[in-house]
């Protein structure tokens, strides 16, 4: 979608030297997949694409340029822009070094759903246009294909950008689909929830793809890899896996921008985003705060109120 506009903008930015490099999505040889690319010369800009398979949160790459002087252009979806906001609030990078190319995002396609809905379909059967998604010409209801995190997305339009590509989305998927994949888990009994999570944690191989794909996980040394003291064993046992994911979720409390990049990065497809999303839902309800949406109010865990919920304390 909008490739031609996108490429012109990129070339102009590089030509006028407003930025030193552009971080964006590039095409690949494989069906339904894009990859993060960095562009330093004009001719490289032709590889830029924008389609519903741009699942990586590119804000993750800003940590390479924290201590350099580069001026960086970054393609940001709605959730990515929230991630940039959190990074700015946590003083990881200065706003004036960033040129944010905003993308009005219709949502990302989930590969398993695509495989189930259209088995053996090849990429050229589809057209992913700004007006909608078409399979052999007839429109598809995005609700069938959207990622679970995108189905509950409240901010399809970037909150902060220097230039927006495409018309802003009029409604958010959350409003249109009223679907939240956390709800069925809430209805389960504690034992059923535990069985579900211990089954998922048995699949985990502790490759840390979820942590490394997250723009807000930028610690120099993660507690999971520390040996002095060693908090968790490097063995991928279910208990150590769950301990790693629970502590990482606590570290994301009030910071997670609900982009779902961790879930898309998981090589064994664990719905790992549910943990931080649940915490964000609790924070949205109890402390009326959404990460990366307003730069003035303090992060929830860095402030307090007299009437914070406390009846669970004896």
């Amino acid at each position, binding site marked *: 979608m909008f490739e031609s506009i996108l490429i012109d903008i990129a070339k102009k930015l590089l030509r006028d030297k407003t930025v030193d490099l552009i971080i964006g999505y590039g095409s690949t040889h494989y069906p339904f997949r894009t990859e993060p690319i960095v562009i330093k010369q004009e001719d490289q800009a032709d590889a830029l694409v924008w389609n519903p398979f741009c699942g990586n949160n590119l804000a993750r790459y800003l940590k390479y340029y924290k201590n350099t002087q580069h001026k960086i252009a970054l393609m940001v979806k709605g959730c990515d822009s929230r991630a940039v906001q959190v990074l700015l609030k946590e003083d990881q990078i200065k706003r004036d070094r960033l040129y944010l190319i905003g993308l009005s995002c219709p949502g990302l396609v989930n590969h398993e759903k695509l495989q189930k809905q259209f088995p053996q379909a090849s990429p050229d059967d589809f057209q992913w246009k700004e007006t909608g998604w078409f399979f052999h010409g007839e429109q598809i209801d995005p609700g069938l294909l959207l990622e679970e995190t995108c189905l509950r997305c409240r901010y399809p339009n970037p909150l902060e950008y220097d230039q927006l590509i495409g018309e802003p989305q009029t409604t958010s998927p959350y409003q249109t689909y009223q679907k939240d994949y956390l709800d069925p*888990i*809430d209805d389960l009994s*504690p*034992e*059923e*929830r*535990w*069985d*579900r*999570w*211990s089954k998922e944690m*048995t699949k985990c191989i502790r490759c840390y793809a979820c942590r490394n794909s997250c723009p807000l996980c930028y610690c120099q040394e993660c*507690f999971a890899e520390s040996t002095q003291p060693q*908090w*968790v*064993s490097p*063995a991928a*046992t*279910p*208990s*150590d896996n*769950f*301990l790693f994911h*629970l*502590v990482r*979720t*606590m570290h994301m*409390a009030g910071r997670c921008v609900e982009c779902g990049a961790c879930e898309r990065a998981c090589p064994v497809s664990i719905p790992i985003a549910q*943990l931080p999303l*649940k*915490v964000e839902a*609790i*924070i949205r309800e*109890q*402390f009326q705060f959404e990460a990366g949406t307003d730069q003035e109010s303090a992060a*929830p*865990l*860095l402030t*307090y109120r*007299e009437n*914070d*919920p*406390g009846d*669970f*304390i*004896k």
Partner: protein
Amino acid sequence: MIESSWEPKIVAFLCHWCSYAGADLAGVSRMQYPPNIRVIRVPCSGAINPLYIFKALREGADGVLVSGCHPGDCHYISGNYYARRKFYILKELLVWAGIEADRIHFSWVSASEGQKFSEVVTEVVNAVKPLGPSRKLVKEFSTNV
């Protein structure tokens, strides 16, 4: 029912200024409370990293008690306020993950509340005992292939 001879092991993080002093007062005044808790003194309830609680459960603690000063009494002014929010989120997350709610307890005990401290500990032990030995999150290395 769990046979009564089994005694749960409970790790208690007590804040140095209030709860630890409260526990000390309970001891000095010869107040009876179950001997199941192992006390770890921390500077403030706000200084308790969720990692400590998970690590305690991983190493086999059957229950965790975290106790600090009443809101407003904190030696560091707002340590317990931050802690209250963090513990609220932590407890909700743990319950959502399927860990029994009665494994994790929080309380405000001031330095003068020796009596309350023994009551809280008794209440915690009675809450953890029916749950039996902790088996969720406990480290376990049986090979799976």
